[in-house]
């Protein structure tokens, strides 16, 4: 047990920190989302730089263009990114979900075709899993995938797809057969988002922004070569995608929480320094942040030893989402009535946006209810609640 960076880790962190200080474009510090073409161009450029500096695919095997490093470097990377308030690589879905799934299940020609362009951000990916009728219950997807001659035909609707409005490709889970066991009969495809019949509609959120999208597929033709895994074997492939999502997800969340707690501390110092109730709540958030941080370190040690992400990913998501909801609400309470005003660049508008946005945290990427089910059933071994 040693909580200090080792010499190689310290060097990596030092280099990265200096690089970030020099390179993060002013327009991207503390950014709120890839909306608007200008931000997007900046984002593509930024992602390319990250890749050129060797920070994309840190844990990917070297043979696929990655750095082949242990997981801890991905964790260090996420910590430093959060510390610098720098945005992530634009292709997070490709890097964290599509890429690892292709590495695990793809044919050599698929690996050659897709992986390098994920790293360089030449191609942006999105995810087509959730549907209006199947939120928590993924196996109930109804988007139809039919094999007609030498291609699949896709019809259906996906929802809650980040990046779909700028994506080049989509990893899609659809139903190719009606079966008694609903986990069978699913098929996993790579869909070109420029195909005829693909329509993306931004989905406006409670904040007024559109960060997610709906994707409508109408008789979209997908070449047979874009099949990942087997026809009817999509569930297993999708599980790879989701388990990778949880790999070092906790670190990104703790990083985001670290930024939020630091901003909260600054706000409290400025506006409520002497209020004992505020002080108590700020201290609680600080403690929770440390708890999440060190839980992540324990998870990392286990991941490196076993190669399998432990339940800490669910723990981190559950607690981060609730912490973020609490602390953004504390911030608007500190600000008071002024936080009703939505425009401007100052603290009131910033925190109001964060507070409204936070309501999605306990819903997106696994609702808190589903995460508690997972912990109860998979970790504690309690009977299924459904």
């Amino acid at each position, binding site marked *: 047990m040693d909580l200090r960076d080792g010499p190689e880790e310290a060097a990596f962190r030092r280099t990265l920190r200096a690089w970030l200080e020099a390179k993060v474009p002013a327009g991207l510090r503390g950014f709120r989302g890839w909306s608007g073409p200008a931000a997007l161009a900046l984002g593509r450029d930024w992602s390319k730089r990250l890749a050129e500096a060797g920070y994309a695919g840190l844990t990917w095997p070297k043979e696929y263009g990655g750095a082949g490093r242990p997981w801890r470097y991905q964790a260090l990377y996420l910590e430093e990114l959060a510390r610098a308030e720098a945005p992530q690589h634009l292709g997070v879905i490709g890097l964290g979900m599509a890429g690892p799934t292709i590495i695990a299940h793809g044919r050599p020609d698929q690996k050659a075709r897709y992986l390098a362009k994920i790293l360089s951000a030449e191609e942006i990916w999105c995810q087509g899993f959730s549907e209006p009728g199947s939120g*928590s219950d993924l196996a109930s997807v109804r988007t139809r995938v039919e094999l007609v001659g030498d291609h699949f035909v896709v019809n259906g609707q996906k929802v809650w797809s980040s990046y779909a409005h700028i994506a080049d490709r989509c990893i899609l889970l659809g139903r190719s057969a009606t079966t008694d066991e609903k986990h069978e009969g699913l098929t996993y495809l790579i869909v070109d988002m420029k195909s005829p019949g693909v329509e993306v509609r931004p989905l406006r*959120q409670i904040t007024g922004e559109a960060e997610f999208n709906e994707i409508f597929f109408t008789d979209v033709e997908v070449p047979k070569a874009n099949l990942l895994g087997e026809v009817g074997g999509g569930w297993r492939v999708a599980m790879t995608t989701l388990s990778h999502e949880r790999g070092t997800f906790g670190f990104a969340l703790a990083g985001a929480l670290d930024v939020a707690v630091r901003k909260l501390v600054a706000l409290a110092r400025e506006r409520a320094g002497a209020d004992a109730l505020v002080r108590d709540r700020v201290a609680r958030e600080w403690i929770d942040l440390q708890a999440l941080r060190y839980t992540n370190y324990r998870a990392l040690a286990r991941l490196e030893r076993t190669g399998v992400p432990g339940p800490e990913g669910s723990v981190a998501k559950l607690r981060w989402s609730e912490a973020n909801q609490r602390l953004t609400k504390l911030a608007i309470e500190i600000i008071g009535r002024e936080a009703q005003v939505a425009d401007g660049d100052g603290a009131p508008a910033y925190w109001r946006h964060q507070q409204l946005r936070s309501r999605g945290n306990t819903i997106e990427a696994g609702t808190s209810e589903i995460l508690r089910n997972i912990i109860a059933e998979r970790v504690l071994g309690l009977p299924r609640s459904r």
Partner: protein
Amino acid sequence: MDFSFSPEQDQLRTQARSFLEKRYPLARLAEIATSADGWDRASWPELARLGWTGASISEAQGGAGLSFVEEGIVFEELGRALYAGPYFSTVALALPALGCAPDLLAKVASGAFTATFASPAANASGAAVDGRRDGDRWLLRGEADLVPDAGLVEAFVVPARGPDGIGLYLAERRDARPLVRVLDTVDATRRLARVTFEDDDARLLAAPPAAAKIIAATRRRALAALALEAVGVASRALALGVEHAKSREQFGRPIGAYQAVSHKLADTYVETELARSLAYWAAWCIAEDDGEAELAASAAKAYAAEAAVAACERAIQVHGGMGFTWDHPLHRYYKRALWIESFDRSGAAHRADIAQAILGG
């Protein structure tokens, strides 16, 4: 001892519920919220005709001669329907001061006159506006901020510092004066504005020290009214959540069959009922000018606002991603709940007042 509504009061509620449900189905909320004024102006004469604007105004002055209990029923139902318009401003905030100008009460009752309360922060009792005598007129100068419905009303009740202390003045809006800048606020159904007075004409409603009493009474009314509105908001959010939980299926069952969903909704029910009890208590205290009115209004506002916020948050969670979208009406209820919570002061500040009353120190 009888904590129930009379048949007439029940009838008022039924009438209000049915009028508002017909006129403001959920589908219309977005249209009204995104309109220029954020108000279906044509509704006001109807509210007057229903007797709501003059509910507590004496029959002699054209009102219904009822009490704050009846107004409370209207507040709750307006909250439930998320009515956008200057009812809260006129009836909760302005009416106590307008009592000093009997000529205006008849106009309020008939729907010909609306007003709001323009204090420096829409809630503080101090004043950042100065009143100065100029012959037989008064002129106001200064700025009031975060004034509710300022863009909609004909006049402003203004606490301003005159030669003898803080008095209450009435500034009517004429020729685009005083200057009103409506702000871009989170709740588009009850907007806030900055109001700037630059030697604008005003009429003295109450001189010090009488003004202080009216300001205190205004605050109590406002807190109780918002508590009732919050109860309306919470119960509508609960109804939406329950409806969704009955119809939405996941894993082959309606999600309301899962305790993670149903117990959340049960908690909302419980908190809404408790908030309702406190709000009715506060309404009765205000109607009767009871000695506990101030404590009751503080307790009701603090509790009901937090209950309404929690009710909306749970309803959003129960709706899943859908509840988080702009197109679903829930966020508008949520934003109103947050508006109510932020008015006057936070729950913690109200609890500090209550602690002061029961613990001393």
